[in-house]
C-alpha cells in the first residue's frame, strides 16, 4: 500500500525497529437474524501502520471508540487480526503457532487501565506477580519468591507486601503491582493501555515517573495508549493520533505538538482545558460526535465534523503521507 511505502521510505534511514505494524485491520462481525448471518462489520481498526525503535515510546492517542485499545490487544493476539502484519524484532507475530506465541508473550507484556479490575482479588500479590514465572518455568520456590520481592522493590513497594491481597492497596499501589507483573518476565515491549487515566492527579505523576525510570534502567519499549494528550506529550518520543480506526497524524512528539497538521489533532489540542486561567485560548469546538465504526462516513472519516471539509474530502480518503518529506505524516487533503 501507498501508505506503508511512504512510512517505510521516510523511516528507513534509522536502524532497526523492535515493533513494525503494517496495515493492521481488526473487524468485528455484526450478526443478526435466526442464523446469525453476518450483516456487517465494525471496523475497529482499519489499516494502521507504525514502527517503534527499541527503547522508545510511541504514544497512541484518540478518543473512546477510536480503536486504540483494539490495536494493543490485537498485537498480542488477544483479538485475532483481520488483516495486516506485526513484526516483532523481525519475527511475524500473527503467523506463529501457539507454542511459539507463548514464548513471544514473554517479550511482549501488557498493562491495563483499571487497577481494580485487572488484579484477581483472590490471589495474593506474590502469586499475581509470580504466576507468570511459574507458567513459563522461569523460577520456582525460593527463587521465585526472591524474584517477586525484587520486582516489588523495583516498582516502589516492598517484600512485606507479598502476602497481601489487592483490596489492601490503593489505586496507585495496584497499578504498581500491575507494572511489576508486566516486568516479571523481562519483556522488551510493554503495551500500556491507559495506565494512568484511572488514577488521581497526585498519583498519576508518580506512575508516569516510575514508567520512565524503568524504561531507562531496563531499556524498555513502550506502546503508550492514552487519551490524555498532556501525559502523552510528556512520555512519548513519537505520537500517533487515531480517529475512527485510522491513524490521522503521526510525527515526532516535538513536531506534532508544535505544529499539528490534521484538523482533528488541532481540535483535540485546543479542547484540553489548561490549568492556567491566564492562558484561556482560542478553542476549536468540534460539532457532532464520533461516527459509528460500523457505518463510517464516505471519504475522509473526519469530514462531517471537520471545519475545513470540502467536496474532495467527502469522496476520497487521503492516505497518511508526509507533505514535506520528513517524519511528519498526516491524512488530510487540506493539511
Amino acid at each position: 500500500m501507498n501508505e506503508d511505502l511512504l512510512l517505510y521510505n521516510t523511516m528507513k534511514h534509522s536502524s532497526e525497529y523492535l515493533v513494525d505494524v503494517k496495515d493492521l485491520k481488526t473487524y468485528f462481525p455484526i450478526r443478526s437474524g435466526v442464523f446469525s448471518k453476518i450483516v456487517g462489520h465494525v471496523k475497529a481498526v482499519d489499516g494502521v501502520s507504525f514502527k517503534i525503535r527499541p527503547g522508545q515510546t510511541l504514544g497512541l492517542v484518540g478518543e473512546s471508540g477510536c480503536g486504540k485499545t483494539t490495536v494493543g490487544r490485537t498485537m498480542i493476539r488477544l483479538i485475532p487480526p483481520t488483516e495486516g502484519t506485526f513484526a516483532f524484532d523481525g519475527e511475524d507475530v500473527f503467523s506463529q503457532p501457539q507454542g511459539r506465541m507463548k514464548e513471544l508473550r514473554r517479550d511482549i507484556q501488557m498493562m491495563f487501565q483499571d487497577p481494580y479490575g485487572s488484579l484477581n482479588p483472590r490471589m495474593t500479590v506474590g502469586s499475581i506477580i509470580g504466576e507468570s514465572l511459574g507458567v513459563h518455568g522461569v523460577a520456582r520456590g525460593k527463587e521465585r519468591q526472591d524474584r517477586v520481592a525484587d520486582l516489588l522493590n523495583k516498582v516502589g513497594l516492598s517484600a512485606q507486601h507479598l502476602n497481601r491481597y489487592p483490596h489492601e492497596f490503593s489505586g496507585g499501589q495496584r497499578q504498581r503491582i500491575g507494572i511489576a507483573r508486566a516486568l516479571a518476565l523481562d519483556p522488551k515491549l510493554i503495551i500500556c493501555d491507559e495506565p494512568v487515566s484511572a488514577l488521581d492527579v497526585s498519583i498519576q505523576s508518580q506512575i508516569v515517573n516510575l514508567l520512565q525510570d524503568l524504561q531507562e534502567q531496563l531499556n524498555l519499549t513502550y506502546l503508550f495508549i492514552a487519551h490524555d494528550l498532556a501525559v502523552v506529550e510528556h512520555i512519548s518520543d513519537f505520537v500517533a493520533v487515531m480517529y475512527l480506526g485510522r491513524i490521522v497524524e503521526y510525527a515526532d512528539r516535538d513536531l506534532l505538538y508544535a505544529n499539528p497538521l490534521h484538523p482533528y489533532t488541532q481540535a483535540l489540542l485546543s479542547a484540553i482545558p489548561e490549568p492556567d486561567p491566564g492562558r484561556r485560548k482560542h478553542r476549536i469546538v468540534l460539532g457532532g460526535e464520533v461516527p459509528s465504526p460500523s457505518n463510517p462516513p464516505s471519504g475522509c472519516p473526519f469530514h462531517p465534523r471537520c471545519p475545513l471539509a470540502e467536496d474532495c474530502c467527502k469522496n476520497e480518503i487521503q492516505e497518511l503521507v508526509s507533505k514535506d518529506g520528513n517524519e511528519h505524516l498526516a491524512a488530510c487533503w487540506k493539511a
Partner: protein
Amino acid sequence: MTQTNDNLLSIKNLSTHFYTEQGLVKAVQDVSFDIPKGKTLAVVGESGCGKSVTALSVMRLIPWPPGKIVDGEILFDGESLREVSEDRMRQIRGNDIAMIFQEPMTSLNPVFTVGNQIIEVVKLHQKKSGHEALGIAVDMMRKVGIADPERRVGEYPHQMSGGMRQRVMIAMALCCGPELLIADEPTTALDVTIQAQILELLRTLQRQEGMSIMMITHDLGVVAENADEVVVMYASRVVEKASAEELFDKPLHPYTRGLLKSLPKLGERKERLDVIGGSVPNPLHFPDGCKFHPRCPLGCNDSRCRSQEPPLKQVAAGRSVACWHAEGYDDKSE
C-alpha cells in the same frame, strides 16, 4: 469572606459523618464556603476527599444509615436547608437546586424514553399538563443543543452517546429553571472534544439564565476555565479558598502547589514530573495534626504540623488557607 446578601448558598462548618461497620468516617469536616449569585464555584480534590458528600449534604441526599450531617448550617437564599421539612426540601430539589451527575450512563433510567424522564420532572415540580410538559421537554432539549429534539424525545438512553446523555441530564436539571446547579464531575466520563462542548454549553446557559453553579471536579484544567471561585479539599477539609486567578497565580497551600506542579502541561517539557509522595490517607485512619503532613514537602519535621490541625484562616481579601507555613498565616492569634 464577608457575609453579604449576594450569596445564594452559604455553608458554615458543615460536618457529615458515616457510621460504618469499620468505624466512623468523617467524610466532611468543618467545611464552609459561599456561592455568590450567578457565579461558578469549583470544589476540587482527589477521590475520597469529601467533595461529592458535600454536594449530597446540600441536597440532603445523604442516606441514613450510615451517613448523617452532624453539624453546621446550610443557608440557601436565606432558608436553612437543615431545618426545612422533607416536603419543602422536595420542592427545593429540582425547582431551586438541581444536580447533574458524573455517569450519564447510569443516572438515566434505561426503560423510559428520555422525553418521559424530562416530563416526569416538569410534571412533578410545575403542575403542568402532559402536553405542556412535552413542549417544555422539547424546548429544553433544543436549548442544550440536541439536534432534532422532536424525534429524539422518544428515544431511549441506550440509543444516545455519552455526550448526548449528559445533555439530556442537563436538560432535565434545567427544565425547572433552578437558581443553583450542582454539577458533580459533569465531564469526567466524556472525551475531551465532547467535554469542550458540554463546558461551553454550561457557560452559555449560565449567562442566559444567570444561575449559580457548584462544579465538583478533580480536573484543574476545567477549574481554570470555568470557575470564579475555588475551594480545594483534602482529606475531608477545605485547605484553600481563593478566586480562580489568584489560586493558579499563587497557590498558598503546599497541597495545591503540589497538585499544580504534578500536572503535565501542554507545551512544557520537563525531564520528570514533580510528585506529591505517598498516597491519599484512608478516611478511617486520618493522621494526627495537619492531615497533609505525611506527604508535605515543608512540614515533616515540624512538631506543630504533626500534632495540631491548622484551622482555615483568612490571609488576604477573599483568600483563606489552612497551613501553619503558608505566607501570611497568622499563627499567633490561634
